[in-house]
């Protein structure tokens, strides 16, 4: 069992007040994505969507979400990534 920090997330969503949020989960947590969406939508006025594809790490964030007017991405299973520059 892993700590998904959903109560903290609700507080953070209320603070930032996004209209639309995308949740991105590694494969091992994808089966909980429906519960996370339900929890967000029941506790905030934010609409929540699920990233269907890969979640290899913090290096792997979906692009082009501005087009869909997604205000916030929440990725589980990773933390801030310091990209190595070449």
């Amino acid at each position: 069992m892993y700590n998904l920090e959903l109560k903290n997330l609700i507080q953070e969503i209320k603070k930032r007040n996004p209209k639309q949020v995308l949740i991105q989960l590694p494969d091992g947590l994808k089966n909980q994505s429906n519960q996370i969406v339900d929890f967000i939508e029941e506790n905030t006025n934010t609409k929540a969507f699920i990233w269907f594809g890969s979640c290899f790490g913090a290096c792997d964030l979906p692009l082009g979400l501005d087009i869909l007017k997604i205000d916030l991405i929440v990725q589980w299973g990773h933390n801030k990534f310091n990209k190595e520059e070449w």
Partner: protein
Amino acid sequence: MTQIIFIDAKWLGKIQLTKELENFLKKRRIKSIALFASVQFTDLNNFIKQIEKIGIKVNTTKAKRTNEKIQILGCDCYEDSFNKDIIQDSDLILYIGDGLFHPKALLLSQINKKDFKSVIVFNPSSKKITELDKEVIEKQIQKIKRNLKLFINAKNIGILVTIKPGQQYFSAAKKLKEKLEENGKKAYIFIDDIINLNQLENYPFVKAWVNTACPRIGTDDILNIEQPIINIREALNPIKALEELE
């Protein structure tokens, strides 16, 4: 602009030194360990105290790309991935986590070293102990050598670039293309999101590939394909990379 939040998803159980792990370390007469974990398992203060109590020194460092001490990523697979070379200063590497992808990075990071240290994987959930030694990556080492040789002799090179923000090295790819073409090769840059290696067969004019995305493509995924791929780090000086492996 889309904002981002990361949630570690820490494991909810207690990470404890088991009698089995203690006996394992004592039997090997381990005096010091290099400790690493995936981000779900980095709350290790209590575990470290337990290890120190049995007379074992615990060495820790921060991998350069991570945000936390002890944490390791799959891409930390080079000797210089860490702030401090604690592997050299330790009898053994202990990895805390529930998979093999991350600890294999610790094996790969020692690929050029003569004094190779095994990685002991301790799964705090199942309490299982697994030892990974150099043999685990032997096939990969052979394939990397073979790919380097094919790259050195290839005329037409394909350079793979991902648009994933954390893995995107478009500028480095363009610099590499220039360098290769100065040395008489012809290079083409290919761009995609996920690097799907099934696409390689559509470009038969490419005789060897350079991966600029996740380095594990050039160390692990190569086992599943015939076409030679090397990582950009090796492509910058393939002869030196080959010499270091021989």
